[in-house]
């Protein structure tokens, strides 16, 4: 018990980790209370589709009606960012979660046991890494139809190999440590050794990559959607908002940053989301690792 209390106190003491927690909690609140913060207009069928007034392509700056302005196609940026928080949690967490799990399992087995198992698993990752991601996405969509689920499956399938590799590399190093030998000497089963000793010491780089990847996943999902492989255009998703702004990043020659809001605002949401998870990851790492140098 006191262990947890100690950890909690460490967490709060460190200002950066505190910031991480606060950021994620704020996003969670936004996601949960989205219908209250950005209510769906009357008669609008699907709340996940961003409402738009008209079809004019040029973005409009922030105004009373649209506090963050509108992007190409007159989609309300405020609505999109708020409801996009839900998509970000959904897409980001599910994909990263699946990928982490798969990568950790396969990577640990591969690194710890070595030998034939290692070879086979590594060659499988080679095959997946060689695979062009877009074709896989298109094939999955051809089989399952375009939807959020299809692109999540596609992204997960494409992303797991690098995680497996990363874990494997670290486990290769860690398994030579004395405490591993000691643990085995004491008669611990392989499973126990992996889970309790090897993995916690090897997992951090993977967590770093995962926390950085969340933003990339959101952007990749949007790119696929724009090709017609995912959710329809206008789905509340930060990546889509950013992609809509692509051709407005540089405005008219006399006023190049005229449409700054179209890309900066959704971009900031992505940035802080990634930042939050990163700081959180750092925080847990700092607390959990008993060997870390303490001042």
């Amino acid at each position, binding site marked *: 018990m006191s262990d947890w209390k100690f950890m909690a106190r460490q967490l709060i003491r460190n*200002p*950066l980790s505190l910031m991480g927690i606060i950021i994620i909690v704020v996003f969670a609140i936004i996601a949960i209370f989205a219908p209250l913060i950005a209510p769906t207009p009357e008669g609008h069928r699907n709340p996940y589709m961003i409402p738009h007034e008209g079809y004019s392509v040029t973005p409009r700056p922030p105004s009373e009606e649209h506090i963050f302005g509108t992007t190409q196609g007159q989609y309300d940026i405020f609505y999109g960012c708020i409801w996009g928080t839900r998509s970000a949690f959904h897409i980001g967490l599910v994909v990263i979660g699946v990928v982490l799990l798969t990568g950790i399992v396969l990577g640990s087995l591969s690194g710890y046991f070595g030998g034939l198992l290692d070879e086979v698993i590594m060659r499988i990752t080679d095959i997946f890494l060689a695979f062009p991601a877009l074709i896989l996405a298109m094939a999955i969509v051809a089989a399952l139809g375009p939807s959020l689920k299809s692109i999540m499956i596609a992204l997960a399938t494409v992303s797991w190999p690098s995680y497996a590799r990363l874990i494997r590399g670290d486990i290769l190093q860690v398994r030579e440590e004395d405490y591993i030998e000691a643990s085995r000497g004491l008669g611990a089963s392989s499973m126990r050794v992996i889970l309790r000793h090897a993995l916690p010491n090897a997992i951090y780089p993977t967590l770093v990559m995962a926390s950085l990847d969340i933003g990339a996943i959101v952007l990749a999902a949007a790119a696929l959607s724009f090709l017609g*492989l995912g959710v329809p255009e206008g789905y509340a998703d930060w990546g889509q908002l950013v992609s809509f702004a692509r051709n407005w990043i540089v405005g008219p020659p006399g006023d190049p940053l005229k449409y700054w809001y179209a890309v900066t605002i959704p971009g900031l949401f992505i940035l802080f989301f990634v930042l939050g998870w990163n700081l959180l990851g750092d925080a847990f790492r700092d607390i959990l690792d008993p060997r870390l140098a303490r001042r």
Partner: protein
Amino acid sequence: MSKRFSKMGWIVLAALLCLSLVLMPGCTTEPAEQEEEEEEISIPFKNPDTFIEMTIGDAESLDPAWGYDTASGQQTTLIYQTLVWWDGETSDVVPVLCTEYELLPDGVTYRFKIREGVKFHDGGDLTPEDVEYSFERTLVQDRSGGPVWMLDEQLLGEYYSPDAGFAAIDAAVEVDGDYVVMTLADAAWAIPWLQVLAGPWCSIVDKEWCVANGEWDGTEATWMDFHDPLSGSSYLWDKTNGTGPWMLEYWDPGIEISLVKFDDYWGDPVQFERVITKKVEEWTTRKLAFLAGDCDLAYVPLTYIDEMEGIDDIQLYKDLPNLTVDSFFMTFDIDPASDYIGSGALDGEGIPTDFFNDIDVRKGMNYAFDFDVYIADGLSGEGAQRGSPVIDGLTYFNPNAKMYSKDFDKAEEHFKAAHGGDVWDNGFKFTLLYNSGNIARKTACGILAENLYAINPLFQVSIQPADWRSVMIPNLVTSKMPMFQIGWMADYPDPDNFAFPFMHSQGTFSHFQNYSNPEVDALIEAGKFELDPAARKDIYYEIQDWYYDDAPGIMLAQGFARKYFTKYIHGFYYNPMNPVYFGPLWDMTKSES
């Protein structure tokens, strides 16, 4: 305590700094906007004697018999030449590689006197044998999906050269001394044939050079070996030898193609030493390059025309009538395996496969559509509504043809009458697809879906972007889409070229629609072969009325083109049939004044 505070303080400071760096641009736009009027954007003068175009397409093939896309046509038109070419901005033709031509009294025989003293890039001389070979080679190749069907139809009376046989191919074009004699399949083709002759697919190649490099030798024995070749297999795919003012310097597929001046060109000297077409897909990069003077013409998508306003050093040509038209087709007999018709029955959860068979449904759709908003927002104002496939610029275009306009009352009236009242009472659901990235088509889908919902909340149409190749085309050719948008571009400026694909049961688009009306078929066939201009006009006016009365689709708009040059380019004039996007470059110049 204090230590933690100062740490916190630093963190906050750092975060604020980052934030301000990002948000600062937003604040600085306020004063900048006030100075907007005084900003002088000047485009520097660079690369004299070089013409550089930045566009989004790249040629598929430099083989004149192969290329059907405009990007290929553009390069072929600069490298090769044809017997005749368009006269200025009109759809009449003037001699180029011939010096004169005449149509004999029998109405089907043309005689072309071939110009002398013309050199190919490789050094060879132009002879009538080269002309004969060029046409025969094209007829022999007749690749699937290629442009040769026009020559097949007008010279051989078939759509497919093997159906006519080699003897017919041989006889269609013959040499007679200094003349080349061509025999048409029907007198009705007398004028359209001249128009086809001006197309890049009728370019003249050097027979000796072709044969020496492994192309067809001109004999009957080997002709089937060169028929319908695989993509990329012909020697002329990426190697050229034409009579045009420029020759190929290098082709970097997907990146750029560079042509360099041919010094022994027979015609009037051209100014440009080099012509470079670059493929730059990113709009912002294109824009910045154009403003930096690194290209002389940049393709500006309709969406961004507002940004290019008010810049002195840009020379804009606008309201150029394109010979293209887009339409929103309705499928008369939808494939039951379609994913887009919901339940497949008129129970409010889908549509039956014969949903659009009912004229009231079709008229209802037309009245529900908002053409003004489509043109204003989907086309950024650059278009004009048309009532039928026969558009402005084609002969016998009726400027007073009947057209639909948004009328919710009439729409309601027709929907209430449709399918015995079931449509109105039960409602319907189906899915509209548009090719992803196409704003005009997305807007049209949006307008239709939202207007239908406003007319009756039971009319629920959902919209989906779809990949053109893996989704749109397969569903299109199997008639699985309830409605689809697609456009046509003129092969030659004759109304038959548009009426047939849109309205004849064997036409490309009406075929996918499963639209078949024997009366319309008869009318179109009559129009195709009618020789008397007055009678032909009557027929085409009737055809245009038919489209309104039968409403097989929602005819959208004919687009207008804009061309953005720098002010240093002079001499541009527009002919919609010229595949070269930047116009008749051989008549144009570039100078600082």
